[in-house]
C-alpha cells in the first residue's frame, strides 16, 4: 500500500490541479492577511479581546472585511473543492485508462488501492492546509508582533485537523461517485452540485430557515414556546448540512467569545458573561460537530470501499 500512496502523492505533486488548488489556498491566506491588516484593530476593540486578555493572534484568522471573516470563509469554500478535485477521478480514471486491471494483477489487496488513494489525498490536503496556516501565522506574526499563546496554538491545530476532516468528507464523497460512475464528468459534476446545495443554499442562502418556516410557520404573534420550538427546528435542519457543522465548529474554535450554538432566549443572555470559553468548553460545545464530520467522512469512504470491493474489474 505504501507503494500506492507514494505514487499517488508523486502524481498529485506533479499535477497542475494540485498547483492551482494550492495557489487558491495561498490566495485565501493572502486575503485573510489583508483583511487582518485592515480590520484587526476594530475587530479586537469591538470584541473586547484586548481588555479581556483574549485571543489576539486568532483574530488574524477571523478578521472580517465588510463583515465577512475572510480567511476561514474562503477556506470553507476551497477545501470542499480541493477534496472533490482530488477524489473525483480516483477510480474511474484508472478504469478508463486500462490501468486498473494491470494494477490489480499485481500482488496487492484490492482495498489497498482505494485506501492508498484516500490516504494520499488526506496527506496532500494536510500539507496544503498546514502550509497555508503556517504561512498566515508567520506573516501575521511579523505584522502584529503578538506571539500566539499555547491555547491559541492548540486551537489553530485543531482547526487545521477539522479542516482536513471536512476536506476528507468531500474527497470521500467524490471518490464514491468515481467508483459508481464510469465517466469522470459525472463524478465531478454530482459532488459539485451537492456542494452547491449543501453550502450555498443551505448555509449561505438560509434554506434551513426557509424549510423550518414552511414546515412550522410562525408570525410575530406566535407564543414564545412555538418560537423556541421553531428555532430549534431551524437549528436541526441546518445541522443536516456538513458545511453548517463545519462553520459552527470553526467559529466556536477560533472565536472563543462566540455566543453559543442554537437558540438563546433574552433571559438566558442576561446571565451570560462576556467571557471567552476555555479550550475544554469550546471543544465540548463542538464535540458533536467533530463526531458528525468524522463519521460522515467515514461513511462516504466506507460506501465507496464496499462498492469498489464488489465491483467487476473487467473494463468492457
Amino acid at each position: 500500500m505504501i507503494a500506492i500512496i507514494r505514487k499517488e502523492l508523486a502524481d498529485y505533486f506533479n499535477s497542475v490541479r494540485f498547483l492551482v488548488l494550492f495557489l487558491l489556498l495561498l490566495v485565501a491566506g493572502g486575503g485573510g492577511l489583508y483583511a487582518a491588516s485592515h480590520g484587526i484593530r476594530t475587530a479586537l476593540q469591538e470584541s473586547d479581546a484586548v481588555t479581556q486578555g483574549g485571543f489576539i493572534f486568532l483574530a488574524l484568522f477571523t478578521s472580517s472585511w465588510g463583515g465577512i471573516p475572510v480567511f476561514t470563509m474562503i477556506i470553507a469554500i476551497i477545501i470542499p473543492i480541493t477534496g472533490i478535485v482530488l477524489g473525483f477521478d480516483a477510480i474511474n480514471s484508472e478504469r478508463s485508462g486500462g490501468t486498473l486491471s494491470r494494477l490489480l494483477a499485481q500482488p496487492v489487496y484490492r482495498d489497498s488501492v482505494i485506501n492508498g488513494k484516500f490516504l494520499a489525498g488526506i496527506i496532500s490536503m494536510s500539507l496544503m492546509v498546514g502550509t497555508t496556516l503556517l504561512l498566515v501565522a508567520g506573516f501575521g506574526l511579523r505584522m502584529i508582533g503578538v506571539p500566539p499563546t499555547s491555547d491559541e496554538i492548540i486551537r489553530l491545530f485543531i482547526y487545521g485537523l477539522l479542516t482536513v476532516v471536512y476536506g476528507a468528507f468531500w474527497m470521500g464523497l467524490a471518490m464514491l461517485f468515481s467508483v459508481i460512475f464510469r465517466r469522470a464528468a459525472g463524478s465531478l459534476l454530482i459532488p459539485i452540485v451537492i456542494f452547491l446545495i449543501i453550502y450555498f443554499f443551505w448555509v449561505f442562502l438560509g434554506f434551513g430557515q426557509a424549510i423550518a418556516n414552511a414546515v412550522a410557520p410562525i408570525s410575530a404573534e406566535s407564543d414564545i414556546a412555538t418560537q423556541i420550538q421553531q428555532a430549534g427546528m431551524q437549528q436541526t435542519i441546518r445541522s443536516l448540512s456538513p458545511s453548517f457543522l463545519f462553520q459552527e465548529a470553526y467559529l466556536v474554535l477560533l472565536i472563543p467569545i462566540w455566543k453559543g450554538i442554537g437558540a438563546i432566549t433574552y433571559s438566558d443572555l442576561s446571565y451570560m458573561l462576556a467571557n471567552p470559553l476555555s479550550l475544554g468548553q469550546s471543544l465540548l460545545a463542538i464535540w458533536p460537530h467533530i463526531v458528525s464530520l468524522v463519521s460522515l467522512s467515514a461513511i462516504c469512504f466506507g460506501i465507496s470501499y464496499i462498492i469498489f470491493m464488489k465491483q467487476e474489474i473487467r473494463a468492457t
Partner: protein
Amino acid sequence: MTDTLAIDTKDLTKNYGKVTVVDHLNFHVRDNEVFGLLGPNGAGKTTTILMLLGLTEPASGTIRVCDFNPSREPLKIKRIVGYLPEAVGFYDDLTARENLRFIADLNNISAPETERRIDEVLEMMGLTEERDMVTGKFSRGMRQRLGIADVLIKQPKLVILDEPTSGLDPAGINQLLDIIAGLPKMGTTVLLSSHQLYQVQRVCHSVGILSRGKMVIEGTIDELGREAMAGGRYIIEVETAEPNSELVDIIQKIKGVEKVESDGTTLKISTDSDLRSQISKAVIDKGALLVQMKAHEFSLDDIYMKYFKEN
C-alpha cells in the same frame, strides 16, 4: 515440456445474472508450453482469465493455478503470474521506466534489482531508446511491447496474455509473436487468448477452442488437425492453361487422392499426404500445360470454421 500443470480447471462455471458466460469448463495448461485459448468474441475468454487470477469469483468449479487456488490465495498467484489485459493502459504522464518502477515497487522488488530488471526487459522488448519517454506518446505497438515488459518485470512462472496482438500492424505482430514464442525457453508458461487463428497456430503448442463458455476441443495442433480434417490433411491446387476433363479422372486414380473438384482451369485436390510430384507428373504426362501448383496444409482456420459451422 513436462507433465506438471500450470493451470488446471474442473467444471469452472460463471454466470452474470441468468447468462452463463463460462459453462463447466475443463482445461489444463502444462508447464513451459504456449497454450492458445481461442474463441470468437464473447466466448468467455476474458472471464476465464479473470477467474484464473482471482479477480472474479467463479460460481462453481475448482481452479488450480501453479498449485494455488485463486479464490483463496490470490496474492500468491499474482506474485508469480503476469497478466497483460486486453486494453492495457499506462499512466500517461509517467515515463516507461517510471511505469515499470511502480509495478516493481508493488512487487516488493529491491531498488537496484528493479533498475537491473527494467534495463533487461526494455532491451528485450526493443524499448531501450524510449525508456525515458512518457507513455502517453507511445504508439500502439510500443504500448503492447511495454505491456509485455511490464509482465516480465516480476519474472513470472506463468504469463496470461489477453489478445496481445489486437490493433497491431503486421510487423508489430510478428515481433510480438517472436517474443512470445521465446518465453518458454526462459521457463515461463504462456496462456495466450486470441481470436486470430493464424497467430495462435504459429506460436502455440496446444490450443483450446472456446465457444459460449464451453471448451469445444482441446489438444495439440497436430491432434486437432487429424481430428478435424479426418485424413484430408493437404489440399493441392493445380492450375492448367486450359480446361481438361480427362485430367480429373487420371488424378482421381492416384493413390492417396480423396477428392478432386474442378473449377474450369483450377483443380482442387484433397489428399492425405504431399502428392505434388505424382500429380505434376500426371499433368505433364497428359500433355496439359501446368501454370501453377499450390499446396495448403490444413490450418486452424479449417478446424475453427468446422466447429463453428456445426454450432
